[in-house]
């Protein structure tokens, strides 16, 4: 129960509170995943929920991701609203077939008769010094799949609201949580403020010279870069995309038409990452406004490296600023 109207919370706490609210609001909401029960998940996002809502609603599953998502499909057919936790980004792939061929297609296949109100939560991205498969950014693959909706939160308050909105959505939502941010920064949550709709982007810093598009973990990087750039007299606008599929291109086009320049920043591999789609759309819609090509900064086109290299491998403030400079110099 969220008692007070404002409190300082982490992203982990925001998600936990949001899940709790959703479970209180609707008895059909179930949580399922590996270690989500007693342990509260390896990141403690479901901490305390099994204790309060019981084993029937917070379900520890056998160790099988396809099984988790596949049985969640069946529960959704029976009228439940399953919220599934994939323990780490790199472990979503055994469930890929169920997600892409079943979750994404059942509404279409059934001509709308079988809705799939399922949320698949995935802690994603790097920067926590983990071993292989624990730092992936699989979002492009899901965004390429019609039938899924894909969102990424970037801060505690969004985490709190967006998870509730995703659960309330009658379509399947891939819900990406920047694990590096789980316990990083705190923010003030005011429960009485009406949140923005789920599938909208947001300008998180205004600027005139260049537009930086980011989501999830790179929003913080982008904001820091904008701060640093401001020190050197360059005015960077930062947009937190929040929704990756559908994209909310309105604010993006408006911004780029104004600045004439855009840089996309994500942790996923650049090749065929979200930046590709954003560049393709921006160059089409803002063709005459662009003063430089849309540039992309992201993970290199190599597998994620051993963690001692991750800070070099991930797009950071310097690499983003470098791209901003290149854009401005064009």
């Amino acid at each position, binding site marked *: 129960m969220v008692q007070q109207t404002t409190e300082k919370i982490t992203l982990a706490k925001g998600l936990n509170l949001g899940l709790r609210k959703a479970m209180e609001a609707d008895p059909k909401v179930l949580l399922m995943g590996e270690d989500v029960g007693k342990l509260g998940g390896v990141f403690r996002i479901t901490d305390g929920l099994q204790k309060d809502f019981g084993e029937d609603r917070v379900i520890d599953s056998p160790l099988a991701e396809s099984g988790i998502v596949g*049985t969640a*499909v069946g*529960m*959704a057919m029976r009228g439940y609203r399953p919220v599934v936790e994939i323990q780490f980004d790199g472990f979503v792939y055994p469930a890929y*077939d169920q997600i892409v061929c079943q979750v994404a297609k*059942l*509404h279409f*296949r059934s001509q709308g*008769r079988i809705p799939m109100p399922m949320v698949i939560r995935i802690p994603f991205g790097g920067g926590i010094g983990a071993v292989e498969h624990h730092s992936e950014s699989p979002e492009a693959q899901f965004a390429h799949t019609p039938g899924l909706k894909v969102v990424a939160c970037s801060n505690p308050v969004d985490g709190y609201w967006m998870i509730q909105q995703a659960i309330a959505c*009658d379509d399947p939502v891939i819900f990406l949580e920047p694990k590096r941010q789980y316990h990083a920064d705190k923010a003030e949550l005011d429960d009485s403020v009406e949140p923005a709709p789920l599938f909208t982007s947001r300008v998180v810093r205004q600027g005139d010279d260049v537009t930086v598009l980011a989501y999830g973990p790179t929003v913080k990087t982008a904001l820091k870069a904008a701060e640093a750039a401001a020190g050197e007299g360059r005015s960077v606008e930062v947009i937190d995309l929040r929704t990756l599929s559908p994209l909310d291109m309105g604010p993006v086009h408006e911004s780029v038409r104004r600045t004439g320049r855009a840089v996309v920043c994500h942790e996923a591999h650049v090749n065929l990452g979200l930046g590709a789609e954003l560049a393709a759309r921006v160059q089409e819609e803002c063709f005459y406004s662009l003063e430089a090509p849309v540039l992309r900064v992201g993970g290199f086109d190599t597998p994620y490296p051993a963690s001692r290299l991750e800070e070099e491998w991930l797009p950071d403030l310097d690499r983003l600023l470098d791209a901003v400079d290149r854009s401005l110099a064009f």
Partner: protein
Amino acid sequence: MDGTAPASPGAGFGPDLAEVFGPSQQHGGPELVQLLTPEGERVEHAEFRFDPGPGVAEDEAIRGLYRDMVLVRRIDTESTALQRHGELGIWAQLLGQEAAQVGAGRALRPQDFVFPTYREHGVAWCRGLDPLKLLGLFRGVDHGDWDPKDVNFGLYTIVIGAQTLHATGYAMGMQRDGVVGTGDPDRDAAVIAHFGDGASSQGDVNESFIFAASYNAPVVFFCQNNQWAISEPIERQTRIPLYQRALGFGFPGVRVDGNDVLATYAVTQAALQRAREGQGPTFVEAYTYRMGAHTTTDDPTRYRLSDDVESWKLRDPIARVEAYLKRNGLAEQSFFDAVATEADELGVRLREGCKALPDPQPLDVFDRVYAEMTPELEAQKAEYAAYLSSFEGAH
């Protein structure tokens, strides 16, 4: 220490299991549950008996099963013909599997829920689904145009095995709804998941066994072992009788003569009842044979002997019920004539109905992707609509 072999290598694992179980025999082996022989003779089984339930006369029930099988076979042959005439793109034939499907289908109660493969035309029939509805998918006008909730019969699933997990999850939902093990026969419900022998090799199917066992979910895994997965014989998928797979997961498995509608009915009914009562999952292997091709595009002469097919013809599921009814004077010729007439009428209805199935409309595809359509898809639809209408002037 160099890890040299002990004096009696390989000791301790007992006899070779494959030897104990024996290869899966053409006649299903001694474990096969049978209540009606291929010759149409009733036989007793120590554990299972055919019981159509209170208030239903046995011979009437058996005539009903006969009628079901004849009509289901007609659906199949008619659809095959429709494919040959270009009215269907493809058809998945069930010839030879009528008893397995009707036996399983008739064992269901209204509140039970079915997850089919792409071949469950006979189960669909038992659920009361209009057989015309089955044709849309194969004609290419839809992916299955019925509401699963209306008949408690899910859409056909083409990705092998995926539906077994859905079935298990649905059964877990029933547990949460409190409709399992209450003791109220009109309330207690179960799920049946259909799949093939080939499907038993998929990870998803084995995971569904694990989840069902772990949660003791009310689900019956009903496998039609028709001996083939397209061109691959059952021996590629398992070296022991398939029903024994369940033992490894801690729930019972049973092999029933899938060409014997009475035995299939009895075994499925008992398995469903276990599930409804809260005793958890059961694996039923309906031992049968795919008499036809895998689908109408398949050519089985490339991979199997016609001799095998011939020997299975002697075990025809319909012929044995007919023989039983006739020999025991349980049905007049007029009954058989009436069923034949009904089948003919059904054939006509399918032929005509198939051709009349409405073609889908291009713009519909956009509307069906999401419950809440996205603005970008809305835009794509509008753009395409404009594009389409740009041709209208041209004509």
